[in-house]
């Protein structure tokens, strides 16, 4: 089916200024988390470790990109009255695919992320982009928009996770970097920097993620006055 449609929309694969904007806009000025306030829930739960955040980021990029693509391909065939359910089924289908794949590829991470993989379904980024973009645009553009938003989400996720893991556990990607106390991991042999620093457990707890996102918003809005909330 995809082949037929791509022929019909030949020439749609150009990559000009407009397409580039679709990819780069969500990274900063229109970031899904800090500006559109979408998909915050999972941003908090999975950012205790950088490795978890990266896996989650990849999963979300995959789901947003393909859900946008499929919805856009089907946009003229979806009956209006059951639009929401159809979109949700597409998303839930992709999420199940991700879950099954992750369970086969990396079982421990799958176990760690537990219900949060399932919660990608209700990650408002995906649903929000389907409604706002894919239902009204051509497949190629929708696909790019999906990737852009997924990456924008993943960047914030990894940023929060880096702060939380580095200062909360003293490690990055499970390698001990700073701090004195416990070698949390069996594979660390080298001595860490800043041995006087004792990792701050508060950062591993979920409220810390809230504070870090708030600080990111603070910095971003100080630099770009357009985004400031007037109300």
């Amino acid at each position, binding site marked *: 089916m995809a082949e037929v449609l791509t022929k019909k929309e030949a020439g749609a694969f150009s990559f000009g200024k407009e397409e580039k904007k679709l990819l780069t806009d969500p990274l900063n000025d229109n970031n899904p988390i800090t500006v559109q306030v979408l998909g915050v829930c999972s941003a908090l739960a999975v950012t205790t470790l950088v490795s978890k955040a990266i896996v989650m980021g990849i999963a979300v990029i995959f789901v947003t990109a393909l859900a946008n693509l499929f919805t856009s391909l089907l946009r003229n065939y979806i009956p209006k009255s*059951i639009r929401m359910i159809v979109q949700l089924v597409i998303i839930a289908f992709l999420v199940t695919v991700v879950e099954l794949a992750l369970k*086969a590829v990396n079982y*421990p991470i799958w*176990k760690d992320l537990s219900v949060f993989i399932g919660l990608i379904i209700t990650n408002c980024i995906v649903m929000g982009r389907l409604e706002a973009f894919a239902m009204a645009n051509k497949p190629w553009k929708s696909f790019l928009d999906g990737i852009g938003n997924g990456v924008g989400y993943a960047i914030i996720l990894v940023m929060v996770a880096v702060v939380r893991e580095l200062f909360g556990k003293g490690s990055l990607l499970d390698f001990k970097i700073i701090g004195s106390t*416990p*070698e949390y991991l069996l*594979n660390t042999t080298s001595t860490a920097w800043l041995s006087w620093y004792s990792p701050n457990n*508060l950062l591993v707890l979920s409220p810390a993620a809230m504070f870090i996102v708030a600080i990111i918003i603070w910095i971003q809005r100080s630099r770009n006055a357009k985004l400031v909330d007037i109300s």
Partner: protein
Amino acid sequence: MHSTSYIIRFTLIMTLIVAAVLSIMVSGLKDTHTLNESVYNKKGILSAVANQLGKDVNSLTSEEVQTIFEKQIIQKALNNKGEELTPEQIKSITGASSVVDIDLGKENKKPADQRVFPLFVYKSADNKTYNILYTRGKGLWDEIWGYITLDSDLNTIAGQAFDHKGETPGLGAEIKDNKAWYTQFTGKKLYNQAGEYKSVAVVKGGVKDKDHQVDAISGATITGDGVDDMLNKGLAYYEPYLKKNKK
């Protein structure tokens, strides 16, 4: 506006496609999933003898895990009198086809005289025998469990591994992540010098009894109490077996 019959047709076709693709994926990946799960559980057990293995358990491949289990580990199941059960008995009492598959959470809900306890005997490269005991209890949010390795004197703890279903990261979850905490157990003893069962207690405010106490994690009182309770009750079930085999 689409007609009702179109909507029904659309829904049916979509459901069929989605269900078909997913069922193909599920049946195709089934073997990998079961293999991954069993390797994950086995790695959990091997973490309790990480010192004796001399290797980081997480770096083992699934083949290596399987060979260690085949060659160096004897799997047993005991009843509450300390007697070993045959595979047929295990199957008929617990419904599990192998010792690794025994669901201890389910066993703990049965009356004490019908429970089955898994035991893993590890033979190290230098021909020493270690008994790995398995215990399960409740933490703050959900289940916690632990594997405790006993030295050949069946008294001194030679290794340990804890895990949990959903403790708070940074607090309760430290029982699994904080190496400085869990290695406290190594060297502790289950019995006092008079030969009475004492277990190992998790205490706040400093260890007084060097042989039978470890420091609690600050901020994770309930999880610590859970570990304390789980060790005290869970390891006691192995007492008849330990007594019988002690020289």
